[in-house]
């Protein structure tokens, strides 16, 4: 009798455990699904193709920044300056076009080269000068924000070049240009991380830096490269911000580092390095964009935006902790 009850109880326990395991392992997907269902029920506008398209368009620059952040986080670093670098990129491009009259492809190239270079400089500070990643990129955040204000003198700089603005406004095969750009960067990053030796080395460095070093991987050079790549991605995101508005906003990218970090955390990327995928970062960025879109549709005051984002980050980190505990218990 008692034995039977115990057996039944145990079975129920096992079933509960496997259920909780599924919930924990797919927490983000489940959360995403619940969010979509909830929003669809709450507002008829959510599931319209116009709105879904707008989510995709809004999320494109965040997806790109999240991919850059992902690569830095994979090598157990963090980049707090991605939003500031995005702002700088747009400002540099716009200033070069309006003040110096450079043709837009050249201005674009210089803007991307400059954010890649400042990203690399942060990488040098972290890896060769031994500045803590937090401090180095926090200093970068401050410096690049100020540089953006200096370049723009605090006012938006209009961009007249149609070719440039097309990057944020044109469509190809019905798909907006920024979505194409995001797809290209996502596919490129996926190929790099999962198909090449240096991509694998990024994971190795994040997983066990000493082992990577002993295996002959040039750890400091590779980590510097990760920061440079983050700078490049932020630069592209900044170009999209500017192209969407036909002008470089001095406040563009402000606070977006939080969104990028939240996206990778929500996407299951370990902040300790070595674990995570491009798809995770993309999912995270899309989830955040959907939440932000939902808040707008539900007429929630924009003052709540960052509050919601903060709680989503907390939730994602707790979920990650549960998953880790679950994995180590098995």
């Amino acid at each position: 009798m008692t034995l039977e009850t115990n057996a039944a109880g145990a079975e129920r326990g096992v079933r509960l455990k496997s259920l909780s395991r599924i919930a924990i392992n797919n927490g983000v997907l489940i959360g995403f699904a619940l969010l979509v269902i909830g929003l669809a029920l709450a507002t008829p506008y959510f599931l319209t193709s116009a709105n879904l398209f707008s989510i995709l368009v809004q999320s494109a620059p965040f997806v790109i920044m999240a991919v850059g952040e992902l690569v830095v986080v994979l090598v157990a670093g963090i980049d707090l300056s991605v939003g500031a670098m995005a702002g700088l990129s747009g400002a540099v491009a716009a200033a070069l076009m309006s003040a110096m009259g450079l043709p837009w492809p050249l201005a674009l190239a210089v803007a991307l080269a400059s954010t890649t270079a400042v990203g690399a400089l942060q990488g040098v500070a972290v890896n060769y000068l031994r500045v803590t990643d937090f401090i180095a990129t926090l200093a970068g955040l401050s410096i690049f924000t100020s540089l953006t204000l200096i370049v723009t003198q605090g006012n938006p700089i209009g961009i007249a070049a149609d070719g440039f603005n097309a990057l944020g406004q044109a469509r190809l095969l019905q798909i907006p240009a920024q979505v194409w750009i995001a797809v290209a960067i996502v596919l490129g990053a996926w190929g790099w991380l999962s198909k090449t030796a240096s991509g694998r080395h990024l994971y190795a460095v994040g997983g066990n830096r000493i082992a990577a070093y002993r295996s002959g991987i040039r750890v400091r050079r590779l980590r510097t490269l990760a920061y440079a790549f983050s700078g490049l991605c932020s630069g592209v995101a900044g170009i999209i911000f500017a192209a969407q508005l036909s002008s470089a906003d001095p406040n563009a990218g402000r606070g977006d580092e939080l969104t990028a970090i939240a996206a990778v955390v929500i996407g299951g990327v370990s902040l300790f390095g070595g674990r995570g995928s491009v798809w995770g970062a993309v999912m995270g960025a899309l989830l955040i964009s959907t939440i932000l879109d939902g808040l707008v549709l539900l007429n929630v005051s924009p003052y709540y935006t960052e509050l919601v984002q903060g709680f989503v980050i907390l939730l994602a980190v707790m979920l990650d902790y549960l998953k880790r505990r679950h994995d180590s218990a098995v």
Partner: protein
Amino acid sequence: MQTRTASVQREAPSGAPALLSLRGIGKRFGAVEALKGIDLDVYPGEVVALLGDNGAGKSTLIKVIAGAHPPSGGSMTFGDQPVCQFDPRHARELGIETIYQDLALAENLDVSANIFLGREMRRSRIGLPVLDDARMRREAAQALDRLGIHIPDLGQAVGELSGGQRQAVAVARAVYWKAKLVIMDEPTAAVGVGEHEAILELITTLAASGVAVILITHTMADVWRVANRIVVLTRGGKALEGSPEELGEDAVVRSMLFGRQGKS
């Protein structure tokens, strides 16, 4: 168990030149003399057990051999060539692999990724070099097979493997990359009973294939199972050297414990 031990060739292969020769190796850290005039020859295919109390100089000695510490005095030759450059990468190029206690593996990567870490196989895909994972996995499986190691799923992250399996992966990597001398630092310290046995067999297999092994351990039984020669260090100097049979367990233990008194 005993038969395997008996099958191990006990005396150093006479006639063959030493693979590694140390002459008068000394190492000072400031005022501390960590190693004093160590002479040591290691021959291909033999297992040398390096014994000694904590702080006797075992770790310093293997770090000198592995290139992590340049010696303060003395000379080292490896495969007839004098070694003048002491850094880990150079030692590796010579064929000296060290399997550290804290295991130089990336736990988030799978078995074959670890075996090939830093030396990945590539193939060309639309003109771009991409990882040839299928080939690396095949080669890894063969390398493990040759050593009699069975790991069911090579796609598993190394972090999910047991301590013994990880040791095996580290050894397989050393062997795959043609190590001539493998230094193992307490390989059985963190493994279960069944795996303990497997690691000892692995060491025997390794030596039988012509690789020289320097083994640091605190487990006397292991020494008698696999070692051809015992070297006991006390206070940075060589206190005792000989085959397990001619020395006897008593003398070895006494020298490890009371080496100091014996010397003074």
